[in-house]
């Protein structure tokens, strides 16, 4: 610890940070723009000035930028110093000379970093009396709006987009007071993390265009802490609603998980909530009218279920609570995971490793710190975007450490990048096609799934002779394997990443072997699994049989009725198999929030709440249980949590009359009681009866306006606000005004800090954990509980078989995910169906780019334009995974490719 003196008062602080971070951690209101806790310091805006004195005696001091000064023991500085204050206010006045002062019509108004800093520094009157410079704005695609006149040239946008996220199509142009931030030409911002521009930009230059479609001031939204539902990483988000519509998603800081950022799928993929495709009313098909009320629904269900043999089909995108209530309703023996046997087997293999406690599964934050990374069989940018963003930081770790040797501190971003130049750390990727991360990889190889596994096995064997070795490997691959093994061995924090995307179990085993082998070398190796969906891990932990087994039971006639929970089965297997499943059902009961191919097959369809209308717990890829909370109470009373429907129905079935149905007690408590593997999940968030000074935590900021007026066109008397019996959050602006426990933070606000920068006030130290610890509970053992042997079953080398192709699924961040595609902008960015084939195969088949090919997978035929990929191994073809028009394929798939005859 170091002692520093600020305005003559002594403070104990951590050395190694810069003064700005330190002052903010200590609670000083020191303004800044260009510095960002995740991106470090560059000293451009000159906003964070303080007075630094040579020693105690020095009374003159000099102005320094606090973001550029390292904390040293016995430092004397002043934040309050008259000249420093005057300078800070002067910087605002300079920035304001060209700013349009259009706060009233600016999306950022009221939650604007620039406004906050302006007030903070005390700049009030404008003395610049000349013409302002003006710019033309650009069209930047469906997500981000551009309004350059508001720019204060803090350079954060390019630093985030280019330096942090690896984007190429946004930059700074021209010089002096004409600098311009934008694209070379109007057009779509291509980077997958572009949405964060809206949060890093301190003004209204880059704003959320989807919010603009139904704009609401930040303080006029009802907000709740939530978890992104669009991949397995479980990024923390804040979701905001007004007038019954979900308006905006922003990132919610979690120091262990997503930090400050989220990806564009997560940020913009929320329109499903507002979709016209929502199921609105319980339907009993065949009845006239088919829309029914609760009483008739329950009666009808009761009648069906007492006369049939029912099974429940769960879902990797439904919460633990919903899956659990389904299990309770149908009985454990009748409860099936709604995923294919292949996928279920992959998840079992992963669970096997994770349950052993032998290998560390890293948090996202930890992956950022890895110094050597091997990715086996995953296209991370598309399958787990924030993990890709984390690796972009990880590859810099080694140079940051080297820079430390010449005393460049890790926060000194400008100096680091000049020192490091193009140098990057060790990242190796093996995947069938090129991935976006290839550009930062030390080396990447393009191989078939089995060959990726074989490479992995070979690496493990180099690390530990006890690990089984693949036979018949060529010298080049062996050399490559040895090189990777050596680098992993040398690394301080080696990280192996693999996952389920290629539906190849051998890859998972090979990756586990590498991690085990490193472990036997006394290396703290981490093994990170990418899994398919937001609650794939939680569902797998319930250890139920797969969908294929459900089909068997139905085929055998052991069951004839299914209850399907939030699951479009047509995305889980071949159309024929799923049709077959339904054909064996007498009755199909489906609970879901959007109409899809499965709901079309339902005899009984029950509408349910999305993440925005429901509470729930899900488990992310690292085994972290996290809670999302209902954002708003929908006007449509049918949009209720699946677990509420299912539990009420259980009560009804047990004889409770409709007027006496109760909200279930704490479902997680009940679940943990029955399934000890979930122990800890019940403590993720404070219970529903949690109060601070007797008060709930309000979902609405105290500035929330129009409550008495917003429904005045219907009724002038203000209705009673809805109550929330399920959580410690209230649907009002009344309640505890301070900082709530971290899992319950619905929005960030602090006096004087209306922008997202107020997050500073919620952290124990800047960039560090939230007060009281970051939310979420890891459920897997952290120390070895079982001995694990090396895994075997090395597949033979892949050989192209004449006339038949191995079809690999290619995930796409925009398009492959079921729910986010309801956002028009995401649909716009989804690829059109295509088939990727190797150059060699294309030549053999006389195919040129875009030629239409017939692709036959089992009994399904697709006519798809060809995309020729030079790097794709011969005998392999790729098809975009589960994009519209291309679902209904049972993976892994083989297929026959021919040139279409026109």
């Amino acid at each position, binding site marked *: 610890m170091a002692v520093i003196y600020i305005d003559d008062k002594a403070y104990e602080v951590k050395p190694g940070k810069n003064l700005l971070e330190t002052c903010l951690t200590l609670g000083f209101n020191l303004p800044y723009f260009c510095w960002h806790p995740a991106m470090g310091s*560059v*000293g*451009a*805006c*000159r*906003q964070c*000035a303080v007075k630094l004195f040579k020693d105690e005696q020095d009374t003159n001091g*000099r*102005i*320094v930028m606090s973001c*550029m000064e390292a904390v040293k023991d016995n430092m004397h500085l002043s934040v309050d110093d008259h000249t420093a204050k*005057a*300078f800070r206010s*002067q*910087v605002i006045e*300079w*920035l304001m*000379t*060209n700013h349009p002062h259009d706060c009233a019509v600016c999306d950022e108004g009221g939650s604007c970093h620039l406004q906050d800093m302006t007030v903070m520094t005390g700049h009030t009157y404008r*003395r*610049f009396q*000349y013409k302002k410079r003006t710019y033309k704005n650009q069209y930047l695609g469906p997500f981000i709006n551009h309004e350059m006149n508001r720019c*204060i*040239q803090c*350079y954060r946008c390019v630093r985030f987009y280019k330096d942090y996220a690896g984007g190429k199509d946004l930059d*700074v142009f*021209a*010089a*002096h*007071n*004409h*600098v311009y931030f934008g694209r070379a030409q109007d057009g779509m911002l291509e980077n997958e993390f572009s949405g964060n521009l809206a949060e890093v930009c301190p003004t209204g230059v880059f704003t959320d265009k989807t919010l603009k479609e139904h704009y609401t001031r930040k303080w006029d939204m009802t907000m709740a802490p939530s978890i992104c539902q669009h991949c397995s990483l479980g990024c923390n988000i804040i979701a905001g609603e007004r007038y019954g519509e979900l308006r905006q998603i922003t990132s919610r800081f979690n120091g262990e998980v997503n930090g400050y950022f989220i990806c564009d799928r997560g940020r913009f993929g929320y329109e499903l909530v507002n979709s016209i495709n929502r199921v609105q009313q319980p339907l009993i098909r065949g009845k006239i009218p088919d829309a029914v009320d609760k009483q008739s629904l329950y009666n009808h269900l009761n009648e069906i279920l007492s006369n049939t043999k029912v099974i429940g089909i769960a879902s990797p995108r439904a919460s633990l609570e919903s899956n659990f209530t389904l299990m309770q309703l149908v009985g454990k023996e009748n409860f099936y995971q709604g995923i294919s046997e292949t996928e279920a087997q992959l998840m079992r293999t992963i669970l096997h490793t994770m349950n052993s406690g032998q290998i560390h599964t890293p948090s996202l934050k930890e992956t950022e710190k890895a110094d050597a990374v091997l990715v086996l069989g995953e296209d991370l940018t598309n399958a787990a975007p924030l993990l890709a963003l984390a690796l972009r930081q990880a590859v810099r770790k080694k140079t940051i450490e080297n*820079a430390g040797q*010449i*005393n*460049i501190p890790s926060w*000194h971003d*400008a*100096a680091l990048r*000049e*020192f*490091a*130049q193009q*140098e990057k750390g060790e990242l190796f990727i093996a995947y069938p096609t090129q991935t976006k991360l290839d550009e930062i990889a030390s080396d990447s190889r393009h191989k078939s799934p089995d060959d990726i596994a074989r490479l992995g096995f070979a690496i493990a064997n180099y690390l530990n002779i006890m690990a089984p070795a693949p036979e018949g490997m060529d010298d080049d691959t062996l050399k490559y394997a040895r090189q990777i093994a050596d680098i992993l061995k040398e690394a301080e924090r080696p990280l192996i990443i693999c996952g389920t995307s290629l539906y190849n179990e051998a890859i998972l085993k090979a990756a586990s072997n590498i991690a085990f082998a490193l472990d036997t070398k006394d290396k703290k190796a981490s093994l990170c699994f990418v899994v398919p969906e937001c609650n794939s891990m939680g569902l797998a932990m319930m250890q139920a049989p797969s969908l294929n087994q459900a089909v068997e039971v139905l085929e055998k006639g052991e069951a004839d009725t299914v209850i399907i929970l939030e699951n479009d089965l047509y995305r889980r297997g071949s159309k024929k198999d799923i049709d077959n499943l339904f054909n064996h059902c007498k009755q199909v009961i489906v609970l879901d929030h959007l109409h899809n191919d499965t709901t079309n097959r339902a005899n009984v369809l029950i509408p349910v709440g999305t993440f925005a209308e429901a509470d729930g717990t899900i488990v992310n890829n690292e085994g972290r249980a996290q809670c999302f909370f209902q954002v708003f109470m929908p006007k449509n009373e049918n949009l209720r949590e699946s677990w509420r429907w299912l539990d009420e129905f259980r009560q009804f079935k047990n004889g409770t009359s409709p007027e006496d149905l109760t909200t279930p007690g704490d479902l997680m408590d009940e679940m943990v009681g029955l399934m000890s593997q979930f122990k800890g999940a019940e403590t993720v968030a404070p219970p529903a009866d949690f109060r601070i000074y007797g008060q709930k935590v309000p979902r609405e900021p105290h500035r929330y306006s129009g409550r008495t007026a917003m429904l005045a066109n219907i009724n002038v008397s203000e209705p009673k606000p809805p109550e929330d019996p399920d959580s410690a959050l209230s649907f009002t602006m009344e309640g505890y005004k301070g900082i709530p426990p971290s899992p319950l933070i619905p929005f960030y606000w602090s006096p004087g800090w209306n922008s997202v920068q107020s997050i500073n006030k919620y952290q124990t130290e800047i960039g560090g954990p939230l007060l009281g610890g970051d939310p979420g509970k890891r459920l897997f053992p952290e120390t070895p509980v079982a001995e694990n042997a090396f895994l075997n079953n090395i597949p033979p080398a892949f050989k192209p078989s004449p006339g038949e192709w191995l079809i690999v699924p290619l995930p796409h961040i925009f398009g492959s995910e079921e729910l986010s595609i309801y956002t028009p902008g995401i649909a716009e960015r989804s690829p059109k169906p295509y088939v990727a084939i190797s150059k060699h195969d294309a030549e053999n088949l006389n195919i040129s780019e875009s030629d239409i090919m017939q692709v036959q997978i089992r009994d399904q035929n697709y006519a798809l334009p060809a995309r020729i990929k030079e790097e794709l191994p011969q005998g392999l073809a790729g098809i975009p995974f589960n994009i519209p028009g291309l679902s209904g394929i049972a993976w892994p798939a083989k297929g026959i490719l021919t040139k279409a005859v026109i």
Partner: protein
Amino acid sequence: METPLTQHISINRPSLNLKDYVSVGGYQAVHRAITMAPQEITKMVQDSNLKGRGGAGFNTGMKWSFVPMNDAAQTKYLIANADEMEPGTFKDRLLLEGNPHQLIEGMIVSAYAIQANISYVFLRWAYNKAARLIRYAIDEAYAAGYLGKNILGTGFNLEMHLHTGIGRYMCGEETALLNALEGKRATPRTKPPFPQVSGLFGKPTIVNNVETLCNIPHIINKGADWFKSLSPGADAGTKLYGISGKVNKPGLWELPMGTTMRQLIEEHAGGMKNGFKFRGALPGGASTDFLVEEHLDIKMDYKSVAAAGSRLGTGTMIILDDHTCPVGFVHNLEHFFAQESCGWCTPCREGLPWTEKILLSIENGEGRPEDLELLEMHTKYMGPGNTFCALAPGAMEPLQSGLKYFREDFEKHINEKKCPWR
């Protein structure tokens, strides 16, 4: 009086080729240097008290001594700063066009001292004659074995490249220069880390001004004491002094460090032109404070000029005469600086155009009394340390001293609502 830098330069004949240069003792310093330990050279240069001629006046040997010398395999760079774009400055042009081998020799010795293996001449685009000559001279030096692999059998290697700029005053700032050489926007870098430790492509780098480097061979040949003896004053060596403006013989002269302003104007520049009166001068380029009549007898060395409230800078003086409007004069300077701001930091990017606009409005008779306060505010808040690099503080020097020495003229503009010179 010795003039080591310019003794072989004459505008009446072409610059020396390698043969001529060698015949007058050229490249002796290289022969001598390679018999010395690198650190010995650095020490000698440090002892000579040679101060950087690029403007800041930092002891050159001291600067070299910060280069890490422990890792023989490490790439290091030496760069000659020949960007000369400071308005009113035209001294390096003479050295470049007059005797390019002198610079190359200085660079070889300097590179040897820091054990750099790659060197660049960063030349401004406008000096196309110099470009031609340097390119030719570099080729000659390679052919003669002074550049390239295993120089004179010592095992020391040095590559030398000429890089010509494409505009922007910022490129002269040594860290912005590095960015320009790396093919980036010429915005400056922070210090620390200093280029000596992390410079071009992240490697240890020394950037020296052309005139600084041209002194090196002479120091090696004749010693540190000789160099000190060249000047009667506190600062060692000779200096290229220049004068532009309404004098009879504007020009450039190599004189002992510490020659007075009066000597320069009256003896060397032939005094003010008939009908023109001296009102003041920027002693060392556009980013130095005005000196006025009362300062005419101060010595033009780093310390004395600083004591008078200005900087020696590049040593090339721009004279303000009584027929030239001081407001217009200062406006011209601020226009230049505002244009050349790189746009990285706030005070410079936003402040300079503001001062320019104020000065223009005063010049046009539209000034308000409070404008002077605003100008003063800028000079106060754009000082060293408040901005990212030295460009803006430099820009404030003529403004703050202009407001001090010519305040009446500013006020007259405002009161009379017109420029008295128009």
